[in-house]
């Protein structure tokens, strides 16, 4: 059985999650990336979508306009680290509970997730058609003046995932600990190969 989060997501549901766990999302998912974050945090603009208990996706989709009805063609996650600069305040201001993207995020997001009970999760990169097929309907779009990739696309999703929890509300950061593991393994391997490639004599 898949573990499913449903919006609005409660603090209790968030507190049960641990890094490395796989979950799926039912409910509302809103795309929000670089400029959306900047408008709220730096320009002090009010977000036109209520994100309390909600979920955002770091992504710039390809959307087709079928005579007034929008169709999600392709929606893959983008590098979450670009939003690190804004995410702490974004979480505090909006009350968002689930942030989905690609790759890890940094210490400020970890701190905000701990304090405000939120998680960051990874959707597999390069799986844009899978994601698009899990969007049941695009309900509306806000901030269209930002263009297709940066606009806030409000979608109803079903079994959206797999989402791998990468930052939980207990202060764990999966990608950081993975990187530490890779770096710990690196030195001995590099030295061993180095011994075998001494071609300059």
């Amino acid at each position, binding site marked *: 059985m898949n573990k499913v989060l449903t919006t609005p997501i409660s603090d209790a549901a968030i507190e049960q999650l641990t890094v490395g766990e796989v979950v799926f999302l039912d409910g509302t998912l809103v795309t929000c990336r670089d400029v959306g974050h900047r408008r709220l945090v730096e320009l002090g603009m009010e977000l036109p979508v209520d994100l309390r208990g909600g979920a955002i996706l770091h992504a710039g989709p390809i959307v087709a306009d079928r005579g007034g009805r929008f169709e999600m*063609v392709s929606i893959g996650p983008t590098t979450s680290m670009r939003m690190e600069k804004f995410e702490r305040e974004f979480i505090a201001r909006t009350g968002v509970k689930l942030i989905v993207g690609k790759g890890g995020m940094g210490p400020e997001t970890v701190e905000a997730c701990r304090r405000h009970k939120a998680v960051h999760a990874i959707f597999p990169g390069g*799986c*844009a*058609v899978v994601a698009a097929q899990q969007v049941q309907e695009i309900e509306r779009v806000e901030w269209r003046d930002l263009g297709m990739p940066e606009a806030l696309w409000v979608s109803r999703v079903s079994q959206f995932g*797999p989402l*791998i929890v990468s930052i939980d509300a207990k202060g764990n950061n999966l990608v950081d600990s993975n*990187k530490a593991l890779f770096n710990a*393994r690196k030195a001995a391997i590099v030295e061993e190969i180095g011994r075998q490639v*001494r071609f300059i004599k």
Partner: protein
Amino acid sequence: MTIQREAQAMTDTMARFTAFVGRELPDDVLTQLGRLRQVEDGPLPRVLYDSMFKNLELAHELSRPCCQDTGALQFFVRAGARFPLLGQLRPILTEAVREATRAAPLRHNAVETFDEKNTGTNTGTRLPWIDWDIVSDDASVEIDVYMAGGGCSLPGAAKVLMPGEGYEGVVKFVFDVITSYGVNACPPLLVGVGISTAVETAALLSKRAILRPIGTRHPNPRAAEMERLLEEGLNALGLGPQGLTGKASVMGVHIESSARHPSTIGVGVSTGCWAHRRGTIRFDENLRHQILTHHGVTL
């Protein structure tokens, strides 16, 4: 056919082929991903590989680009000096990109530098990027189409080492790149290493290295051995699919090299993501084409 009609026909074929490359991975990549999928037995890598293969099936079924980031288009051309449309190749490839962008559709990924305006056509100043190799005494042309997203372009790095650092320095450089930015570049990666005199020559060779079919080896036995050692070593890091840990890290490591200045070791690293969208097509002097990277395909 007149030259104009021939050029139009080649443009249409290249537009269809470019869109096709955005949807379907080449045979060697599919085979290698299938092999790596078998190696992974952890629950998380399995979930990830299931999504990746499901995505490829859906992209095929729905005829959509398999990844939303369809790159800033690059062509690597090996043109016979007697190929009849040699002089028209740049306009042909540029027009093919415009057409593929509309038809596929491809994401708009051409931003004019300094103006910071997206052209909306995937063409612009020096874009599509074309790399030329002229083959004397030949009348055909072979063209590699390459589509890389921002994620796997980001790790690209080049540096000039002092000879004292030796090939050991090259190994360290490769590992540093892969354990930092490589983790986020959608592993399992295809890693290209260029070894030459300067940054730009090493960087170009590193890109050409990932255009080689997976599993081919550098003709020099030492270089081939170094490819094998780097492959084993990077796999021992255990990046796994998406960098979320697992048994393998790379689809392969390819080295390309040139003779070089005795005072320098230029090293470049390029990475291709798991969705390594590369296609090679050959046109003979009568403009009949053959696709070399994808078996049994008609455009």
